[in-house]
């Protein structure tokens, strides 16, 4: 089991680290890079924020991710203006129509406009992503800090707990939690939060442990009372960064999980237009009205893609900062 802890700790570092696209100035093969050459000028190493901004600009994928998420947020906020119809307005004579100029994405089995439902569904997805990840991060920070700060037996137990939870399939865990609480959108949010906190706890714990080491070394080296707030100011930003990256990617995972749970009937209840429940409905009518399953799916994928791209881009930028 000691090995498991060891292995899991390595995995934790690797999974966050290895989502990265890798260093792109060095090669296995021998590609020659073609870049514009700058004019000769005095080289002053740029400050960190400028490096980050430059890198972000060059990273087209991250920009795309940011754009997608912005569209999502925009859609969520202004859903009332974007959606041509209400998400619950039923129009039975027009049910299960294929996409047309009246109904861009077609209608579902109750005659509701799928496009409108998807637009309103953006709100639900956003809510799920932000709230569940927020709670997750909070739990993770609390437990991670306690574990790292107090150390000892408490730390050992918590680490074992984290290892077991990490290895346990998240779908099943959240399924169980929702089954206990009762199916609804809020219970899904809670279930997701309770399933995903482990990665943040480990990150924070790791950061605090290394901070403990550095603090200790600094204090023993210093000749006078060293202001620990300075250290906190220096090290805390470094500690937050991997959490920000993980949280961005985590929001994508949260949306996927919500979709899965709703698909299993455990999530948002009708008539709420959660994309996952739309998929669940769509499944029944898959063969006669496939669009009711295709479009919510695409919406979900694009959204999750957006979060993933953004998270990847953030990590690429942050890598420079960490390396310095």
């Amino acid at each position, binding site marked *: 089991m000691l090995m498991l802890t060891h292995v899991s700790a390595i995995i934790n570092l*690797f999974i966050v680290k290895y989502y990265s696209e890798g260093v792109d100035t060095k*090669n296995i093969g021998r590609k020659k890079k073609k870049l514009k050459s700058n004019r000769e000028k005095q080289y002053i190493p740029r400050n960190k924020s400028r490096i980050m901004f430059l890198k972000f600009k060059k990273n087209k994928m991250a920009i795309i991710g940011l754009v997608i998420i912005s569209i999502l947020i925009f859609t969520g906020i202004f859903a009332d203006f974007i959606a041509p119809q209400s998400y619950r307005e039923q129009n039975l004579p027009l049910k299960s129509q294929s996409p047309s100029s009246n109904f861009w994405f077609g209608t579902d089995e109750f005659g509701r406009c799928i496009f409108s439902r998807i637009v309103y569904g953006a709100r639900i997805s956003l809510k799920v992503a932000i709230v569940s990840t927020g709670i997750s991060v909070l739990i993770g920070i609390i437990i991670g800090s306690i574990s790292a700060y107090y150390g000892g037996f408490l730390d050992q137990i918590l680490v074992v707990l984290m290892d077991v939870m990490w290895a346990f399939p998240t779908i099943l865990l959240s399924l169980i939690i929702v089954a206990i609480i009762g199916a609804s959108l809020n219970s899904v949010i809670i279930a997701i939060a309770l399933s995903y906190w482990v990665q943040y706890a480990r990150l924070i714990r790791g950061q605090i442990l290394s901070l403990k080491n550095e603090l200790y070394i600094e204090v023993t080296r210093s000749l006078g009372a060293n202001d620990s707030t300075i250290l906190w100011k220096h090290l805390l930003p470094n500690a937050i960064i991997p959490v920000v990256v993980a949280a961005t990617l985590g929001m994508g995972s949260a949306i996927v999980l919500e979709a899965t749970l709703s698909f299993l009937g455990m999530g948002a209840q009708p008539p709420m237009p959660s994309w996952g429940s739309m998929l669940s409905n769509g499944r029944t009518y898959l063969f006669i009205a496939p669009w009711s399953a295709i479009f919510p799916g695409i919406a979900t994928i694009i959204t999750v893609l957006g979060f993933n791209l953004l998270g990847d881009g953030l990590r690429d930028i942050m890598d420079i900062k960490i390396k310095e």
Partner: protein
Amino acid sequence: MMIPVFILCSIVIFLILHLVPGNPVDNLLHPGSPLEAREQLIKEFGLDRPIYQQYIIWLANVFKGNLGVSITEQRTVSELLLLKLPNTVVLGVVSFLISFILGIFLGALSAIKQNTIVDYIGMVLALLGVSVPTFWLGLMLMLIFSVNLGWFPISGYGDLKSLVLPAFTLGLAGAGLIARVTRASMLEIAQKDYIAIVRAKGISNSQVIIKHIFRNALIPIITLLGLRLGWIIGGAVTIEIVFNRPGLGRLLANSLFRRDYPVIQGSLLLLIFAVMVGNLIADILYAYADPRIRYN
């Protein structure tokens, strides 16, 4: 060390389910049944005793191999588990192999041809694999290959053809993460000092890649794979539902809906056991792959 963890998990499993509001017995009774009938059923299932007693009895039984009787079906839990297990195992193993082979191939190719079209396409595919909900992928594959093309059956089990779509769905989704990690791992190893020394020996590029870069890159990949077992089991749940395959996943989901405690507890225990075994295997493989770990 595994045993205390196992016991801890069993306690948690047992407790959680008993915190759920609602008594399983109520599912079996017709509404409006007399109270005595309810009392009798409660007594029969031992649900009237104090919790810790119930737990001890249950745990003792578990170690004897008696996992109880399903409340909703007239079979022992062990029977049910043994019946459904093989299907899930087959699905799990095949999809694991698919994701492993596809993922490593894609990741290695992307790494070797870094920053070329091959790399970009590969990583886009991998990214999609990570972003797509597994069940949606299953639905779409079903739509294309079963409904429109008619190559594979929509549901069912038992033969190879019915295994293809479910296994590929799970396999493709899993390949994404493996591809990304493989690529990143190989790129990182390629920077290492010892790779330069190996090249300085005058070894051909393909040998350098296969014998040294890939071999070292495998180490973190293996540890990742070990933990994927849990993911595969979770994925099997939804896939079994989408494709109507009987298996452990569907059994668990159904028993959750029906509040069939013994079955829920039995399946969860089995799952935790499987996850632990998987981790153990991963640890062993990891020690095999990395000599530095072996002698600790």
